């Protein structure tokens, strides 16, 4: 029964449908910009609204975006609200994907989307750990990928690629210690952009 439904809908709905439909039906204060490109559709929203918008997208019959594929944080240091949190979503019923983006700065907190999408729990922890954008009332906000005593948020552009501390096992103390990093070689930057004509279109 459920499977017949899916096959029928694959025929008429296409990738643009969710996009256009949600633009027409959501309240304008939730979505303030929508952009469509051949590489995916995105909609921009404010930091207070991801929860409402995602609940709408998940539960509404014609959008049914039930899978949260990915949440990531992007750092654009040149902008005033430097972080952008991107939720990538998928609707298995209509075979469409949509991206919802929010801008935040270092101290803004985003509404968590854990209750409609339980899989977002870990993603939001990772966004917190890597970029420093936290969620209000998140059930379990701790670091997930970095070391136990790590300070800083690695995916911000101001943390250098080699980091600030290095770890080594210290024999007198019989444990692993962290020390400031010692660079024996300077950072190798391979600017392999060719002096010839580049292929840059698309």
């Amino acid at each position, binding site marked *: 029964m459920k499977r017949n439904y899916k096959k029928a809908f694959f025929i008429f709905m296409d990738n643009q449908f969710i996009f256009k439909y949600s633009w027409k039906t959501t309240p304008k204060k939730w979505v303030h910009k929508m952009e469509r490109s051949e*590489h995916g559709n995105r909609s921009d929203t404010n930091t207070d609204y991801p929860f409402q918008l995602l609940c709408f997208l998940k539960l509404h019959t014609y959008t049914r975006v039930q899978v949260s594929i990915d949440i990531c944080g992007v750092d654009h240091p040149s902008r005033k609200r430097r972080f952008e949190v991107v939720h*990538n979503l998928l609707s298995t019923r209509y075979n469409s994907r949509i991206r919802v983006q929010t801008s935040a700065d270092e101290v803004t907190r985003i509404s968590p989307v854990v209750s409609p999408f*339980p899989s977002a729990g870990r993603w939001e922890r990772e966004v917190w750990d890597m970029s420093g954008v936290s969620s209000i009332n998140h059930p379990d906000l701790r670091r997930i990928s970095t070391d136990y005593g790590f300070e800083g948020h690695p995916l911000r552009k101001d943390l250098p690629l080699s980091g600030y501390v290095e770890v080594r096992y210290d024999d007198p103390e019989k444990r692993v210690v962290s020390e400031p990093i010692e660079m024996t070689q300077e950072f190798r930057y391979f600017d392999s*952009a060719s002096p010839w004509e580049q*292929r840059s279109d698309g």
Partner: protein
Amino acid sequence: MTVPATRKDLMIVNMGPHHPSMHGVLRLIVTLDGEDVINCEPVLGYLHRGMEKIAENRTIIQYLPYVTRWDYLATMFTEAITVNGPEQLGNIQVPKRASYIRAIMLELSRIASHLLWLGPFMADIGAQTPFFYIFRERELIYDLFEAVTGMRMMHNYFRIGGVAADLPHGWIDKCLDFCNYFLTVVAEYQKLITRNPIFLERVEGVGIIGGEEVINWGLSGPMLRASGIQWDLRKVDHYECYDEFDWEVQWQKEGDSLARYLVRINEMKESIKIIQQALEGIPGGPYENLEVRRFDRTKDSEWNDFEYRFISKKPSPTFELSKQELYVRVEAPKGELGIFLIGDQSIFPWRWKIRPPGFINLQILPQLVKRMKLADIMTILGSIDIIMGEVDR
């Protein structure tokens, strides 16, 4: 919290980062009441290598050796997705032959990954023998890969616009021989395992996930298909040349560990079918779209034309990523592997977010092991098929 049945306090056991089986460095903090599991908390991050930050400082061609280290058992998929991203950003066409070669390599890699899932899964359950048998087949696949790419495991084979080198002479026949041999071997595994009463006792009815829950939690891959949802990105996304082959999506209804096992075994057989069709239908032609890095582009010259000029020695392939965002995905053997790529108008990407299937599939573990016995944790963990290289990146 329910009243503990056996004792007054609960015991907290640490199944530490080092494991005898091949899951990788995953730490499970398990709260036990006698043999029943009350709660289980996975702790990740032991293999975090900063792959995403490294990607922001490397060109695509420099980054390709890194990507095979995410999922080190199904390496072609990570390479395929690294290369698919820029290809879609730049609208680069991949020649037909390269597409077929890629499909063959991806399916071989899928078989290799499922084999190396099967071995440790059975070893966790207690059957040691399949662990050695799978390496026999995996060595054959390694030999095939080595003949083409030069490396057994961490091939640096895919390039933007195709593959790095063509198939050597005689490889197709060897691969067909392998396919025929492999079908007999899969039959052997099925005879050994599938109706084995001890196996069925351990696996049937363990770790059941319903269809609705699977979608809620965002699972993908064999876990999704074992719970009754026929969602396979190869069919849905129509990527590479999978549409030209005649194959079916393998799925089961029950959603327990046995169903996941059956889905993976059937997927291996289906992959052999795809490889056989691809090998028989492989077209001739170029194996790489050298258009991507040719010099002196006059606007109208055609691919096979005599006026078309490119330097025969391959120059340093630099590819500028345009200022767009893109989410590209592929059906890896573990699930949906995705890259969210934000290009800057430069050779380094601005943000390279890896969406590993294992990271998401692992989230359901605490929920599945509640009220199970301690021994079932390893069964369920094995049937989820995670690999820490991609979970932690």
